[in-house]
């Protein structure tokens, strides 16, 4: 590893919280987010030299987190059950989620979307990725990205009909 490349520990120390935020907007669950990031980092730990030598280690890890989220079938199948009632985001440390998520209809409805649609909306609106960049991350075409995003937004619009979303922007 060259001196210009971040060590694993340094990278995690510097970018760990960003990775966790990325995982949290994907999963909508603090514990799943921690688990997801930890699992991806554990897989990359032994070959960190190659990751560090990539053009953007953070982009590499975020892509891995996103893909792992989309393929996280086994964990979901054993730990989650479908429900019509979407739980409120978990509060922690008397944290900000109490303040924000409790009355955030958009956040609650995002949690009901299929994972791919949610991931695409998160990449588009949280990470400000272009459709072409999202397509590269997910390994699908840009037109497929647009289709998934459109379906997700249409669903949200239907679910939020009659709801004042302006509060979500405050």
């Amino acid at each position, binding site marked *: 590893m060259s001196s210009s490349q971040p060590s694993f520990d340094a990278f995690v120390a510097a970018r*760990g919280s960003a990775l966790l935020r990325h995982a949290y907007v994907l999963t909508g669950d603090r514990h799943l987010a921690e688990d997801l990031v930890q699992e991806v980092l*554990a897989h990359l730990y032994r070959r960190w030299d190659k990751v560090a030598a990539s053009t953007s280690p953070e982009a590499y890890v975020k892509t891995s987190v996103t893909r792992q989220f989309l393929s996280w079938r086994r964990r979901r199948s054993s730990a*989650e059950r479908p429900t019509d009632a979407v739980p409120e985001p978990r509060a922690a440390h008397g944290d900000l989620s109490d303040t924000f998520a409790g009355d955030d209809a958009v956040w609650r409805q995002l949690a009901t979307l299929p994972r*791919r649609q949610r991931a695409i909306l998160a990449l588009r609106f949280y990470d400000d990725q272009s459709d072409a960049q999202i397509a590269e991350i997910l*390994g699908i075409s840009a037109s497929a990205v647009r289709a998934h995003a459109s379906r997700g937004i249409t669903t*949200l619009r239907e679910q939020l009909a009659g709801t004042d979303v*302006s509060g*979500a922007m405050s």
Partner: protein
Amino acid sequence: MTHDLDDAIRASLRRNAEAAPTTVDLDGVRDRASAIRRRRLLDTTLAVAATVVVALGVGVLVHGISSNQTLPPPVNPPTATAGPAALPWIAYTNFDANAQPSGADRIQLRINGNDRTVRTVPRGSSLVTVLGWYGPDHRTLVWGEGQTPYLEQLFYTVTVSADGSTLSPVAPLQLRGQALTPGRSFVGADGLLRLWMPDTIGSATSPASVITINDSLDGASAPWRVGPGGAAFATATAIGRVTGDSQLYVSRSPADTVGTLVPVCGSLRAVSVSPDAGVVALGCSNAHAELIDLATLKGTRLPDIPEVTDPGTLLGLWWSPDGHLHATTNPGTATAQTTDAWTLSGGAWTHSTTPGVVTRFFTTGAPTLRLERLTTDGVAADNAGRLIVETNPPVDLGPAGSSVAVRPTGLSAR
């Protein structure tokens, strides 16, 4: 509302992201990395041990399938550049959910970058399967449509002009002027079409004739008679049928109408013949899978697919052209309508983690691979079949398809 909603999503995600955890547990990461390493070592050890046991016990390692040590590495998608004009003709199905009254299957052609519909078949109880390009210059498409309870279909053709611009009328597949009765179809690695035609349509107890249609569609092999039972597989050298009591009989010569009873893992749910036609993979409703060597009729039980424990959760088995075996499964629990994909490698099933879940591979005489795959992990297997032909660049045939056939690009290709 659109921009308001976009802004609301953006604001909601960014605001709620502040509630995310802030610290990665580095010790936990290292512990987990060590556990992964230990597990891989164990898997490797078990795979080697399993290989030795199989080699000693069976004597013949069935094409190296339970160990990838004798297999070439998986092939990568073609890398040669090819412009749109060089793409082969492609036929595929596409389900139109909006067609009245209950949706319709469309047979589509993509030639020189243009799509056209050959046929629209109301869904009802029927399904459409495109089978391949045959006839002189491989310009005649053959497909099956309509299904009896035992999956027999009628077969139809359409012929495309050499320049791809015009189509003949759709016509039933005929041999020497005679339309064929309904049957089951099998297309093997040799690309030839084999039709399993029961004496009594829609009967699981009817004896049947199996014929192989030649490449030019002007003749067929002498009928290979088989006893009563359902069609399991048909190759040039072996035919498998299943009786109502879930027993598999394999015939290996036209003189053997009864076949040899082969013990199988249970009620068959998935059957797939290897690219070299030497091995058949069987998946049972109890989620067990095994390989049958068609030369010796000896079976090799495959490792259980992880976390597939509920009956009826093994959906399909597929071979890739390089000889790797793949499975699609349903976890059978909370995600009852979803599909997982697995690859048998090193003596164990590996869960696919790529966004595009490959579910079905085909070989073809064309200089490209062709395959079906789901682009979304976690959607029902029977209604999510986005088709992508692995040319360079890939050809995306859209969602809701169920089969695809790529025209060989040369007369000698098949």
